[in-house]
């Protein structure tokens, strides 16, 4: 329903209604009042109620088809009785056939797999303007649609078709009410008055104007400011191409153009005929009763049936028989002539017959080529027929395709008659209609065949859906001391070990070599101990190509493993554009770029990590430094994940204490952020929680007793398990802050994480100023997750708040044990220097994609505050004064 509250207010008089008498206003308000009540009552009806009313209406329409046709012809003096009767039957029987099983009440369509239901809501009162050319059929059609959709209609017929339309409305109304429709559901203006129309069009109770008719009516409807379905004039071009079935085409065109004496706006207007078949086609037309005008006769037609002043057809010719038109203009034709054919040489005002002619006069044009034919069709289409209907007769699919591409028409009818074809349901499977939407080309709101769905407000009931989630890990993970021995199981004819100088010096490379099957050809590619650069990658790919590698072993920390991932990508898919692949994304499943799946080489990637932090051996991420452009890019795709991960603690036994601390904190940060991420799942929680437990237990031991094998082994496992968690749940705002700060001040990633960690935990545990949209989470759970972790660690506490505090305190205690700097100030960075860097730091942190999985959506001001908290150090019991000038 569409009755606004403004209905209570006096209706402002539009300019056109200022002269309306009070009696007239009262009359119109009475109609509106009845319609309003009927529409309101109608909202209570069920689908069964509605369907019980529609069927007898259709039967009544069919029974009265001839009677109404006779009334229409007698009153309008247009068209053909038999054809009008046929139109009345199409408007009832064919429309019923389309609507009878359609749901139009309540839930009308359901998409359970998408969690969507479409529910129908009636419009309320529709003001329906009907044309002179198809008067009764349009009324029958609209009445059936209105009842099916539970709407009330006030009809305003064309003044020269009022009597027959009134009769049609009465038949439909009486039948509908007899079968249960609410009284007042249809009414028909007792006379036609432009001021009445203007008053109704502007009335707040009218929900929709459905205007079928000439351009004036349509324009008035759209100009009213109301939602409107305005469908109007056409100028149908027809391309009769040389491959067409000519007998069929000629009969179809004759059938269509003479149907109801050409009053249907979808009927053929200009037929463009290929040169090769032109004469033959005209002969066939002549044989079947058409009269082909000579040059003189054509000139007579041009100045008689077309108004030279306006360039439009003369009303006196509309809907008249060909013989009557010939007599009217003084052309001699045989008494059984069905149609006049007028050859034209072009389109436009200088060729008057190239416009719409709602009578049986057809223009024809001889085209020398397909190109010329299509251009002339485009010209006709643009000479008043945009968006309406076009016809093509051809057996050549390419011609049909080209025609469909260049012609702007809501209906492109192929190898069938234009007028009857456009109705739908007779020659094709289009929706049956008596209103042809012409799209924006025709100044209309739709290109559809107007149907029941245009008489409904369709409400979408969208249930919450959960995104499909995943848990992906490498195919094989070997862990514990001497896990490297598993290399013996993997066959390779050419293996490249990618590593850095330190690994070679420490003898780790030799350990790996020793464990490869003896027949494996092994080559070494030593890269700098730094985040990989483009140059390093390209050199590595050259090596892989040179040795035709089928296996890559990455031996080192995160940088080496990242380099190997990118080398493998470029080796297997040389055309991969790293710049493009690094494009940002919100949701990995909906990302714009696609990683290559076609591969010219295939190589297995085995990652052996020599630090216990990044977990790169199991992650789908790789960071690349582009020195030429002075920036880093992050590649992320599950195709980057190594095939095999070896988590062997023998490679980390000699890690220095500082590295042990920094990488261990990185591991803890991964696990804590994955645990509270909006992408966390029971699968990632199990990994994250276990990693946290292992870090709290074994990191202090690893740090204090570097040779403790169990502690080293467990920390190595913890790093891998935490990485499995964040590979699937992602990280959070801690990483965004650490990335920005670490890059700006040259602080290691783990240490930068440590400086932020307690503050971020307190931040995430408090009530967000802005929630992060997260369809997979039910409510805000970050603080409860921290409390669960505190329970897991046996920290005690009675309330969630207590437990969070204890977890933060335990984290701070751990950081103290690792002797890691506890404030940015401790690093020797002055307050002034930090303050000066803050705008850039905040910007970079906000641009960092890491926080997009954080449970709280950070405001820039909050990022600034977190930076300042980290500057001061210590999370619990601290208040920090943020310099106001830099807070935003």
């Amino acid at each position: 329903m569409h009755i606004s509250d403004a209905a209570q207010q006096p209706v402002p008089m539009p300019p056109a209604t200022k002269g309306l008498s009070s009696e007239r206003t009262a009359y119109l308000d009475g109609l509106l009042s009845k319609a309003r009540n009927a529409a309101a009552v109608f909202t209570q009806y069920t689908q069964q109620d509605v369907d019980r009313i529609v069927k007898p209406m259709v039967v009544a329409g069919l029974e009265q088809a001839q009677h109404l046709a006779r009334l229409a012809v007698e009153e309008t003096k247009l068209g053909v009785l038999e054809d009008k009767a046929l139109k009345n039957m199409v408007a009832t029987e064919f429309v019923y056939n389309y609507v009878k099983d359609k749901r139009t009440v309540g839930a009308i369509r359901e998409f359970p797999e998408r969690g969507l239901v479409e529910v129908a809501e009636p419009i309320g009162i529709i003001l329906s303007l009907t044309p002179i050319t198809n008067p009764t059929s349009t009324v029958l059609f609209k009445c059936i649609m209105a009842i099916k959709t539970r709407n009330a209609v006030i009809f305003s017929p064309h003044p020269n078709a009022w009597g027959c339309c009134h009769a049609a409305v009465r038949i439909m109304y009486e039948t509908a009410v007899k079968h249960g429709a609410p009284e007042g559901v249809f009414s028909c203006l007792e006379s036609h008055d432009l001021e009445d129309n203007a008053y109704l069009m502007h009335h707040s109770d009218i929900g929709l104007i459905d205007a079928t008719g000439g351009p004036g009516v349509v324009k008035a409807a759209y100009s009213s400011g109301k939602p409107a379905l305005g469908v109007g004039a056409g100028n149908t071009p027809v391309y009769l191409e040389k491959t067409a079935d000519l007998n069929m085409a000629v009969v179809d065109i004759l059938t269509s153009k003479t149907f109801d004496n050409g009053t249907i706006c979808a009927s053929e207007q200009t037929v463009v005929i290929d040169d090769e078949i032109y004469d033959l086609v005209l002969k066939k037309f002549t044989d079947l009763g058409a009269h082909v005008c000579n040059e003189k006769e054509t000139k007579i037609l041009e100045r008689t049936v077309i108004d030279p002043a306006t360039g439009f057809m003369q009303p006196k010719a509309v809907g008249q028989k060909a013989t009557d038109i010939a007599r009217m203009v003084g052309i001699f034709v045989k008494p059984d002539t069905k149609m006049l054919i007028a050859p034209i040489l072009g389109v436009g005002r200088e060729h008057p017959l190239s416009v719409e002619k709602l009578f049986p006069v057809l223009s024809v044009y001889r085209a020398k080529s397909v190109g010329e034919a299509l251009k002339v069709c485009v010209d006709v289409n643009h000479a008043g027929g945009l968006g309406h209907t076009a016809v093509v007769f051809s057996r050549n699919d390419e011609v049909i395709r080209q025609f469909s591409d260049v012609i702007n028409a809501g209906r492109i009818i192929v190898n069938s008659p234009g007028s009857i074809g456009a109705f739908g349901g007779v020659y094709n499977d289009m929706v049956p209609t008596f209103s042809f939407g012409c799209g924006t080309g025709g100044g209309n709101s739709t290109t559809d065949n107007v149907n029941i769905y245009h008489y409904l407000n369709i409400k979408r009931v969208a249930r919450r859906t959960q995104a499909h989630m995943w848990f992906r890990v490498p195919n094989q993970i070997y862990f514990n001391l001497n896990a490297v021995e598993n290399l013996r199981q993997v066959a390779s004819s050419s293996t490249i070990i990618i590593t850095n100088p330190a690994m070679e010096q420490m003898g780790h490379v030799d350990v790996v070599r020793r464990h490869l099957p003896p027949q494996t050809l092994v080559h070494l590619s030593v890269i700098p101990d730094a985040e990989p650069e483009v140059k390093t990658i390209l050199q590595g790919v050259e090596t892989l190509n040179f040795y035709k590698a089928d296996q890559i072993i990455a031996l080192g920390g995160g940088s080496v493993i990242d380099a190997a991932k990118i080398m493998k990508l470029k080796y297997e898919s040389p055309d991969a554009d790293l710049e493009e692949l690094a494009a940002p994304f919100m949701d990995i499943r909906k990302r714009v770029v696609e990683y290559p799946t076609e591969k010219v080489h295939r190589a297995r990637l085995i990652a052996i990590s020599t630090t216990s932090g990044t977990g790169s051996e199991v992650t789908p991420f790789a960071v690349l430094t582009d020195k030429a452009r002075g920036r880093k890019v992050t590649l992320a795709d599950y195709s980057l994940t190594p095939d095999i991960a070896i988590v062997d603690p023998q490679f980390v036994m000699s890690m220095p204490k500082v590295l042990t601390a920094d990488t261990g904190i990185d591991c803890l940060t991964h696990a804590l952020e994955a645990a509270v991420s909006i992408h966390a799942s029971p699968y990632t929680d199990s990994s994250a929680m276990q990693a946290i437990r292992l870090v709290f237990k074994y990191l202090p031991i690893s740090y204090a007793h570097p040779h403790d094998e169990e502690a080293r082994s467990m920390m190595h496992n913890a790093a891998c398990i935490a990485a499995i968690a964040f590979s699937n749940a992602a990280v959070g705002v801690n990483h965004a802050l650490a990335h920005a700060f670490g890059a700006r001040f040259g602080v290691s990633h783990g240490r930068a994480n440590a400086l932020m960690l307690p503050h971020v935990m307190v931040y995430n545990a408090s009530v967000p100023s802005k929630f992060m949209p997260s369809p997979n989470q039910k409510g805000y759970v970050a603080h409860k997750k921290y409390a669960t972790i505190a329970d897991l660690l046996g920290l005690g506490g009675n309330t969630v708040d207590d437990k969070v505090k204890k977890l933060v305190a335990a984290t701070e205690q751990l950081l103290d044990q690792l002797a890691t700097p506890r404030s940015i100030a401790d690093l020797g960075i002055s307050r002034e220097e930090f303050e000066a860097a803050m705008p850039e730091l905040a910007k970079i942190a906000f641009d960092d994609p890491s926080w997009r999985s954080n449970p709280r959506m950070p405001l820039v001001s909050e990022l600034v505050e977190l930076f300042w908290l980290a500057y001061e150090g210590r999370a619990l019991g601290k208040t920090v004064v943020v310099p106001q000038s830099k807070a935003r």
Partner: protein
Amino acid sequence: MSKISAFLKIDAEHVAGDLQAAGAKLDGAPVETTLDFSAVSRINPKALVAMEELARIADEKNVKIGLRGVNVEIYKVLKLVKLVPRFSFLN
């Protein structure tokens, strides 16, 4: 001052008639009238006209009319024809 009130049950089969009768009884009678719609599942245009008339009379006589047991479908009908503010709704 004590309030005078009346309670009328509306018959589902005679909604319009009952409403007209209720309107007639408003003449010089109680200052509050409650109409029980709990037996009514649907109203028709005649009933709607009767409700409009009842609301008009109630305004004229300064009588408050409360509707009890109105289902949501009927409530929506009344909302669409702007009659909701003319009555009070009781659960």
